[in-house]
């Protein structure tokens, strides 16, 4: 079988993965694919479903990639399969198949008790379910979840986020009974209690009772008690959706599911099943990793391959209600003669258990609660020797767990079935960093928990990027920042003498200048600091290709009075500057010679303008839409906030430029999500997004916090910025900084929201110092003859303007004359001007 009509029933995560996998193996399109989807939207990330309540949009959860030759029929569920005629029927028509793939997934199991049909009772399975829960929760105060497993705790968190006081009812004597043991469940419960979620363990729900309005009002429990509640989410497990197969007479598994062999083929050679609806050799798997494995097997088989299902990795790691929980291998110690090593620390609330073989040499499984940092290495070591002594592995942070000790066959990324051998091969082929490994192997592209291990494997292969800044300093920018901060060093010469070598260069000098500026080192052109600055910072203007400079006055929030606008126009006219509106809602004036800069700025400063820091690795602009003041859709004063933020952070030096924007409503006209920190107004406050940028590699910012008051918003941005400035690498924007951070956004949140490192007071104080010590750099220059002295064309002929800067006119404005006739010496080695790529620095080393 290698081509023809292929029908896929279901467009969930596994159904989509199957289509992607087949497309990759069948780029010619020998298979013409029709996908029949029940839901009205294409595949989305159900694993991250709860993120919907954190404000993550539907489009961010989208997993669907359109492929040529694949028809996707949304909202058209299959109603029957006729195996004799090889036809699938829907409400719309019939689809003939040469091969049929069932990817119907599962449905939420609802226990057979009275009242499950009442208004206010929901399951937790689809985006529509979540939208319905959100709508019903509005104005209500108490909710309950039936089921204390993985999904039940997700649902409980969702109800919390919706502002409901929440009860969880679990039939087993502990939370997450499938994944964790009794002691782990007890530790987990301590976290859950603290969040105010009430747990009722070892009891069953016997009935759901309505109130006078007909909606749900109470749960009756098997211990005779009753819980008042206004909303109920049933999360008591899932069951495979096998009705189509059942009706078509296909054999089923002993506990349901479409029975398939290890090739994922049913008893009918033309029909296959993947994902949660498939009972592979009789067993259904409710996790995405084994589902993806079945999708790959069938895709391979359909192009003539011989893949078989490799067995399910049921390892799980997740963050539930802010708590890391992981479970892998034989977590419950069912292997005969196995030994447990456990570690409980009530102070840090960490529980860990390793299950070892009877000779204590082989790792069989384990449970981690509270700190799952050792999970990637441990999971990959299951079935092999321990990578380190048990206690070292269990110590918080998994101090002893190093991926370098793993065998080649160990699976590093279970979501995408990538082994250490695959990663090592990719490294040998030239992948030199984590993004390259992700692109090449797909490792780390799903749940991301193996990313730290990818770094360790790069280390182990000896290709880890050296942290050294340049030949003069062996340390990274971050370490240099700490040295300068802690030792109180205030000059480059002392720093390089004590902690580096040589005279510095165009890499380390601007870095140190930026660090000194961030630590309140006075004016950037004072004393030795001036010599460290890149030409832009040295002249407080932006060098252009012809040796002239451009000038950008600050226009906070893009708001400007007619009087100031006229001044800019007059200055541009009088100095014959080319004028252009920038993307950051300000005005750029081009073609100024160095000796003109002070004259131009004298006029601008007198009119009330300040430096816009367009020349610096610093805050540039806080863009805004017009907001509720004028706009009939606006819900907050976006301009007012943008002006306040721009004035607060103006002059803040950073590892890279910083951009921001504020939108007055969800229509997002200010494009805040393309900024390092973006703010979008809600009815009740502000949503904060971080880590976005345009540029070479555009990236949307991630939602960081929701419905903040203005004070709370500013406090978070303060901490975000100072933490970034202190810990980012040279020229690393906030996006790359967050991506490279172990633990990513969650870690960032723990540091600047939960103060997990005890830094917040210090970060707040640092920003307070910045705000109170700000003064306009250009005004300070104009007031100081020493600083003004450098603005001369020639040291021995200050009255002669640089003759090489000449202009022609284009569309009514001056632009650089491309074919200048140089007045200096021609290069004596006969080297002529050659085309250069503007905007991209030379790549060295």
């Amino acid at each position: 079988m290698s081509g023809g009509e292929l029908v896929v029933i279901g467009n969930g995560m596994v159904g989509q993965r199957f289509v992607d996998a087949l497309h990759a193996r069948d780029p010619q399109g020998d298979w013409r694919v029709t996908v029949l989807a029940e839901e009205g939207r294409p595949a989305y990330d159900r694993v991250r479903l709860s993120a919907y309540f954190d404000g993550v949009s539907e489009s961010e959860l989208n997993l669907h990639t359109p492929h040529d030759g694949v028809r996707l029929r949304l909202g058209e569920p299959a109603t029957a399969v006729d195996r004799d005629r090889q036809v699938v029927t829907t409400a719309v028509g019939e689809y003939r198949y040469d091969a049929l793939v069932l990817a119907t997934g599962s449905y939420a199991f609802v226990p057979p008790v009275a009242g499950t049909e009442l208004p206010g009772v929901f399951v937790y399975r689809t985006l529509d379910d979540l939208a319905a829960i959100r709508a019903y929760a509005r104005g209500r105060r108490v909710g309950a979840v039936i089921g204390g497993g993985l999904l039940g705790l997700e649902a409980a968190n969702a109800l919390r986020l919706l502002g409901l006081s929440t009860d969880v009812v679990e039939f087993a004597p502990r939370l997450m009974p499938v994944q964790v043991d009794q002691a782990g469940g007890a530790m987990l419960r301590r976290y859950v209690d603290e969040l105010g979620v009430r747990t009722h363990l070892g009891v069953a729900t016997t009935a759901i009772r309505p109130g006078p309005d007909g909606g749900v009002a109470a749960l009756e429990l098997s211990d005779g008690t009753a819980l008042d509640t206004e909303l109920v989410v049933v999360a008591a497990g899932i069951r495979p959706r096998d009705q189509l197969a059942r009706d078509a007479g296909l054999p089923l598994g002993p506990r349901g599911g479409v029975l398939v062999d290890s090739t994922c083929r049913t008893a009918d050679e033309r029909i296959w099943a993947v994902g949660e609806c498939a009972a592979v050799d009789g067993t259904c798997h409710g996790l995405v990793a084994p589902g993806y494995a079945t999708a790959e097997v069938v895709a391979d088989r359909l192009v003539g391959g011989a893949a078989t299902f490799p067995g399910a990795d049921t390892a799980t790691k997740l963050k539930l209600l802010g708590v890391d929980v992981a479970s892998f291998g034989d977590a419950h110690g069912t292997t005969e003669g196995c030994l447990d090593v456990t570690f409980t620390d009530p102070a840090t609330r960490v529980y860990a258990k390793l299950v070892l073989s009877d000779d204590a040499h082989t790792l069989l499984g384990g449970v981690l609660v509270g700190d799952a940092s050792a999970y990637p290495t441990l999971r990959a070591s299951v079935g092999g020797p321990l990578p380190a002594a048990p206690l070292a592995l269990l110590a918080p942070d998994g101090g002893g767990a190093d991926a370098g000790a793993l065998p080649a066959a160990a699976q590093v990324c279970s979501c995408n079935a990538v082994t250490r051998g695959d990663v090592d091969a990719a490294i040998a082929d030239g992948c030199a960093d984590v993004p390259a490994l992700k692109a090449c192997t797909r490792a780390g592209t799903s749940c991301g928990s193996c990313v730290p291990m990818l770094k360790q494997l790069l280390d182990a292969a000896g290709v880890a990027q050296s942290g050294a800044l340049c030949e003069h300093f062996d340390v990274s920018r971050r370490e240099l920042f700490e040295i300068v901060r802690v030792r109180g060093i205030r000059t480059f010469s002392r720093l390089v003498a004590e902690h580096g070598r040589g005279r510095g260069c165009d890499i380390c000098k601007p870095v140190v200048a930026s660090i000194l500026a961030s630590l309140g080192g006075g004016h950037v052109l004072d004393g030795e600091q001036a010599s460290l600055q890149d030409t832009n910072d040295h002249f407080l203007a932006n060098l252009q290709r012809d040796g002239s400079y451009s000038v950008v006055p600050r226009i906070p929030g893009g708001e400007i009075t007619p009087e100031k606008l006229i001044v800019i126009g007059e200055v541009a006219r009088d100095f014959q500057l080319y004028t252009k509106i920038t993307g950051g809602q300000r005005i750029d004036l081009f073609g100024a010679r160095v000796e003109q800069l002070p004259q131009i700025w004298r006029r601008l400063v007198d009119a009330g303008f300040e430096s816009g820091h367009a020349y610096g690795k610093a805050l540039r602009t806080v863009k805004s839409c017009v907001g509720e003041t004028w706009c009939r859709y606006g819900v907050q004063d976006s301009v007012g906030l943008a002006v306040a933020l721009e004035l607060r952070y103006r002059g803040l030096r950073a590892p890279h430029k910083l951009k921001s924007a504020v939108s007055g409503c969800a229509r997002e006209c200010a494009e805040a999500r393309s900024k390092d920190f973006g703010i979008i107004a809600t009815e009740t406050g502000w949503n904060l997004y971080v880590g976005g940028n345009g540029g070479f590699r555009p990236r949307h910012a991630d939602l960081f916090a929701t419905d903040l008051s203005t004070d709370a918003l500013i406090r978070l941005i303060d901490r975000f910025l100072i933490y970034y400035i202190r810990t980012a690498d040279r020229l690393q924007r906030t996006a790359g900084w967050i991506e490279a951070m172990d633990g990513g956004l969650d870690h960032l949140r723990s540091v600047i929201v939960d103060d997990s490192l005890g830094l917040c007071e210090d970060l707040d104080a640092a920003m307070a110092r910045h705000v109170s010590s700000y003064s306009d750099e250009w005004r300070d220059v104009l007031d100081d003859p020493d600083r003004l002295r450098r603005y001369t064309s020639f040291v021995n002929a200050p009255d002669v303007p640089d003759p090489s800067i000449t202009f022609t006119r284009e569309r009514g404005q001056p632009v650089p004359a491309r074919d200048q006739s140089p007045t200096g010496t021609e290069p004596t080695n006969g080297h002529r001007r050659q085309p250069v790529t503007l905007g991209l620095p030379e790549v060295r080393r």
Partner: protein
Amino acid sequence: MTQTLTLTWTTVCLLDRLEPDRGVAALVDGVQIALFRTADELFAIDNRDPVSGAYVLSRGIVGSRGGVPTVASPLHKQVYDLRSGHCLDLPGVAVARHDARCRNGLVEVRLRQEG
């Protein structure tokens, strides 16, 4: 072209006018010169960046590479050996170098013609 090559020393400015580890532009016999002062030496090279054609080398960052005193073009960061004028990043590219000295607190420059 107003270029005149001379073999005489021209006084340019007071030494104090030069910031350590930074450059200035000077006009010597109609030629744009980039003049640099390091901790213990003076260097003069053409101000013209041979890669871009712009007269900007005097505004580059002064430093060292492997013990060699250098300046980096402020436009695209190619690094030049201040002693020889050779570009250390692009083989075959170089700028003309000139003589510079300090006499009685005054900086003097003498243009050089090279083959």
